[in-house]
């Protein structure tokens, strides 16, 4: 039992989110179509989906307002009235917030219109997709973390699940369970934003060498229960301004779901300069704005969660394939920023990867050359068109909201060209954007010190919010937040930047403690709080934190987020 035999599959999909499931469903459909047997017959090739969350959807978090058209493409046989949507968008407004007031934009900014779209809970939708996929013969296992890719002669040949029953120092304990080696002809990475395998793969094979650095936002949201009639299902509200500075790309949103529930959240660009900016705190402050506070006045917090959003767009996509491997969805960066939508692109990318996989299976050729079909399909796709029109959107906002709006206006006029000779604007690595704490005139933590007293009715401290994420982790395991060099924290990061990790982490994983005797500051970790958002992996100023997968089944328990 200790010596692990190998698990064989034809297709291994890492990640049971929308992108992974869309890949699986479409591939199963294509296989069935090319293999006209009676329904229910086994698929000619095996498709295995692994999800690290305890169940499908438990790590899924999104806005989410989606365009139903894409589901018609993925699931032509399903009647749209069976879609697990909350509500069609009934009202769609954009507001500009000052600290005390709200101005409604007289028109919806381009690409932000949501007419004909629907408000969904992405968690609910993934659960629904998983059921469909299983009916189509896809094997889905949740609660399994994949910690490593397997290579042979530079080809990806599968992956391996994490060893469990290991103590904090990495020593096997009595209940040690070795991870399993999975051999696959094609491994599809659908890990969501900033996937740990995707990142290692891109580094090893230099897949993102020619791309702009990926830039991210962190989305932080809460699910609330409100008295009947407070906020209509299907009502969508986006806000700009407060509490964001003009030089900070970010905004807020309130969506009405069914059953009296609303989601309220913010998305904050991670290219900010102030090391004390705190997205969780920003959400709390946002909720105290009179317009938002009024909506939530008689409500009750139900859930909390956070996740990063890859916003670099077209120019930040890595090479999407290599020998034996393809990258889909948020892992690759398929997200259209101005419309705040990634779900339809995730599905589209999954479907293209599925087409590519089928052809590769038929030809029994899994080389990079064969899989380049994925990129070819993409270049001819609607997804490409969408991303192309807004290809410089996020880069344009790299200089703040005012310049950003100007850049964006120019891009609309030119069909997406950036104002540079090449038409391609650069983004900067989020981690490199910090100013030293001493150079920040009014740090976020000081500016809002007054607002950052939490009343536990409307506003909540981080730890309380983490409780509402349902996150839990086995205490007996190596820390899955790998701090590469603690000396760097103590001697450079804390003195210069004041320990930004304690602010950027929306789950209080990182704590800066002061020794009462010596007054020396040090970093303490609480990995059990982690909500798997990956902000630390992105925004540490020295790239000193590596996010690795903990045991499968650990992490948040999102419901309806």
């Amino acid at each position, binding site marked *: *039992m200790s010596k*692990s*035999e190998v*698990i064989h599959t034809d297709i291994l999909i890492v990640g049971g989110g929308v992108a992974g499931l869309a890949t699986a469903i479409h591939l199963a459909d294509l296989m069935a179509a090319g293999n006209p047997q009676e329904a229910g017959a086994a698929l000619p090739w095996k498709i295995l989906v*692994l999800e690290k969350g305890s169940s499908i959807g438990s790590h899924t978090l999104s806005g989410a307002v989606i365009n139903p058209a894409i589901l018609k493409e993925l699931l032509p046989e399903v009647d749209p009235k069976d879609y697990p949507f909350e509500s069609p968008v009934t009202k769609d407004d954009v507001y500009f917030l000052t600290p005390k007031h709200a101005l409604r934009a007289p028109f919806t900014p381009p690409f932000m219109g949501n007419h004909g779209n629907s408000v969904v809970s992405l968690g609910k939708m993934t659960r629904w997709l998983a059921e469909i996929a299983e009916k189509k013969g896809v*094997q889905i*296992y949740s*609660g*399994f973390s994949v910690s490593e890719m397997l290579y042979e002669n530079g080809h990806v040949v599968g992956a391996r*699940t994490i060893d*469990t*029953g290991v103590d904090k120092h990495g020593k096997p*304990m*009595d*209940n*040690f*369970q*070795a*991870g*399993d080696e*999975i051999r696959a002809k094609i491994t599809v990475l659908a890990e969501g934003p900033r996937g740990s395998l995707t990142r290692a793969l891109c580094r090893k094979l230099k897949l993102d060498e020619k791309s702009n650095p990926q830039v991210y936002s962190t989305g932080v949201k809460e699910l609330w229960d409100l008295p009947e009639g407070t906020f209509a299902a299907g009502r969508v509200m986006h806000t700009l301004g407060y509490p964001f500075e003009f030089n900070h790309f970010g905004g807020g949103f309130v969506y009405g779901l069914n059953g009296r529930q609303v989601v309220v959240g913010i998305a904050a660009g991670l290219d900010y300069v102030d090391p004390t900016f705190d997205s969780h705190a920003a959400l709390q402050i946002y909720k105290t704005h009179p317009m938002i506070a009024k909506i939530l006045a008689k409500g009750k917090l139900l859930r909390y969660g956070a996740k990063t959003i890859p916003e670099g767009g077209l120019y930040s996509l890595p090479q999407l394939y290599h020998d034996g491997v393809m990258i889909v969805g948020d892992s690759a960066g398929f997200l259209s920023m101005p419309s705040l939508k990634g779900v339809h692109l995730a599905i589209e990318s999954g479907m293209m990867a599925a087409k590519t996989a089928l052809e590769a299976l038929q030809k029994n050729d899994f080389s990079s050359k064969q899989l380049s079909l994925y990129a070819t399909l993409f270049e001819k796709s609607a997804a490409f068109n969408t991303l192309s029109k807004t290809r410089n959107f996020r880069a344009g906002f790299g200089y703040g909201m005012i310049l950003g709006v100007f850049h964006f206006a120019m891009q609309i006029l030119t069909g997406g060209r950036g104002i540079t000779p090449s038409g391609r604007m650069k983004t900067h690595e989020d981690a490199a954007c910090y100013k030293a704490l001493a150079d920040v005139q009014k740090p976020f933590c000081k500016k809002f010190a007054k607002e950052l007293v939490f009343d*536990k009715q409307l506003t909540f*401290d981080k*730890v309380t919010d*983490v*409780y509402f994420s349902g996150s839990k982790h086995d205490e*007996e395991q190596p820390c899955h937040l790998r701090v590469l060099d603690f000396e760097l924290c103590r001697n450079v990061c804390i003195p210069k930047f004041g320990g930004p990790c304690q602010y950027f982490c929306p789950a*209080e994983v990182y704590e800066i403690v002061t020794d*009462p005797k010596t007054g020396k500051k040090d970093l303490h970790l*609480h990995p*059990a*709080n982690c909500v798997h958002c990956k902000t630390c992996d992105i925004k540490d100023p020295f790239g000193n934190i590596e996010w690795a997968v903990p*045991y*499968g*089944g650990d992490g948040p328990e999102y419901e309806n987020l």
Partner: protein
Amino acid sequence: MAKKILVAVLRTSRAVQSKESMGLKIITIMKQVPLPTEMRMGADGLMDRTKAKSSINADCTFGLEQGLQIKKHVPDAELIVVSMGPTSFEQSLKKALAMGYDRAVLLSDRKLGGSDTFATGYAIASLLKKLGFSKDSKEPFIIFSGRQTTDGDTAHVPSQTAENLGIPQATFVEKVEYKGDHLKVRRIIEGGYQVLKVPIPCLISIAPTATPARRPSLKGAIRARSTKTEIWSLDQTGADASVVGLSGSPTLVSKVVDIQKNRPAVNMISGHEPKDLADTLVAEIEKIKDSMGGAHGGHEESDQKNDAVAAKADVDFPRVDFRKDARGVLTWIEMHGDTPARSSLEILNPARKLADQLKTQVTAVITGHNIKGVAAEIIAYGADEVVVVDDPRLKEYRILPLAAVLTQWMEHKRPEIALFGATTSGRELAPRIASRVHAGVTADCTSLRIGEYAHRMKKTIFYPVLESIRPTYGESKLATIIGFWCPQMATARSGTFKILPKDLSRKGTVREFTPTFRDSDFCVEVLETKREAGGGDNLFVADIIISGGRPAGDHDDFKLIKDLVQALQERGINADWGASRHAVDNGYAPYARQIGQTGKTVRPKLYIAVAISGAIQHLAGMKESGKIIAINQDPQAAIFRHADFGIVRDYREVLPELIAKVKAGFTFGLAAGK
């Protein structure tokens, strides 16, 4: 001739081999339970399992892991997981298969609905017998189980299954070594542990201090998906349908009420300097001073209230005294060395009260060796008659000879009520006896009284019924359990009943009883018994308990905690200190001071948890305290969700401030006492 010998030799060697490893079967019995957050009950007082999300009962995961641990030493052992319940239990059986079990068997039958532990033990044993496992089996087997379930909390089913199979048992076990034809196990007892040599076949229930369950492997999960769960009906097991289900069970739940003691949300004490924290805490405690001085958080108060409102039937059915010729209240006096166990003295209190109400006698059975001198003391604490069973083989507690003694006495004397202290011994002995004498038993009661019961189906009022009242469903409800079989058996939670004042002028009779034993009653050997002296009994009566977790040992070996205790004692407060299991495991405190599920359950007026994370097992031992103050550096620590006041800070900064406050006269709102 030579050939014959050879065959004989082969046969023996095969027999030896088979005894040791060949064909070893490891069976783990397991239950699926609703997640604690999902517990709710149907109108009938039974668990509503239809809507709740469920998982494997926490203790059962330890049982499952123990089976896998044995398999490390016996690689060709077959692992079988067995459960009883609705087909939705398949979900948990699959998980056991994914962990590495080879076979899953589910006994599922509507006729079993409403079964109590007696009926459950019987039904599971019937299934196991049908699967080929009983005391007469040729093939060696070991049965593991969890200690108890979170929805029943009785710890009865392991004992009752073993009794029905006729095999030896060890419960509350936290360590198992496989030794071929026997197991060497370490069993938790009050204040220490016992090391036992238990022959195979046997049943072992595993405490949650054993090796935690492994995660399923992907390979295991894939295999589990293609392994079919075998589903058995009751008829297939050959069990007698008349002794299972609601109607066949000797106990029934007559009433369930919510326990009204929702601790309000924690008041987190804020402040920048440790002194600010201490000042704020003092100010906050000043505000609630009046509610601090009250009684212990326990049930004693409600106990008296309950007495006043014992159920009176509200219908006009004929009244039937169901006891036939059974009379008298029996208790068992457990000896810890030369002295009776505290819990055994405690149960003399309810025994006395019930006997007075029923106008009958309290008979106490003492078992041990050279114990006659104890009889007078037992009378002084409330017994009318003491039965001394003196035998050198009874010097150490062992379940099988004790079951023989008490069963024979009960069959001989037919008591109407039999009470046991809910020690680890009482909690395994009472159910084993109950299965043998066909009686119902209620676990871990906090209140006992006499009432009557209107049986609407039988249109009869039964009286005088023992109402055994116990917290259940994670201590969120109080259930009243009754039955119409004699003896009506119950175990009483330690620390719940006050020991009656010792009255040396009380008169009583002392007699001896010599039971007949079988050799097999002594098949389990006690290799070692370790019990800490001191016992930590003051923890049951202390007004303030300050407990430390492992960090409190790591940093200063509990010095600050002990200093605070001493400062309080100097102010005339009965303060004492306790420890978490981790601290005890690390040698910072004797086991006698361990607070928690496997240690002591305490209910002081104030409990101060210092550097304790608040693991469920610890909470179980202190959550009924009057007020709780938690001091922990980790704001995420679960303890804060169960505390009245929380201080997020290193205790080394906070305790010196509190000690100074106490020295200056602050006593947490409590008056200096006796």
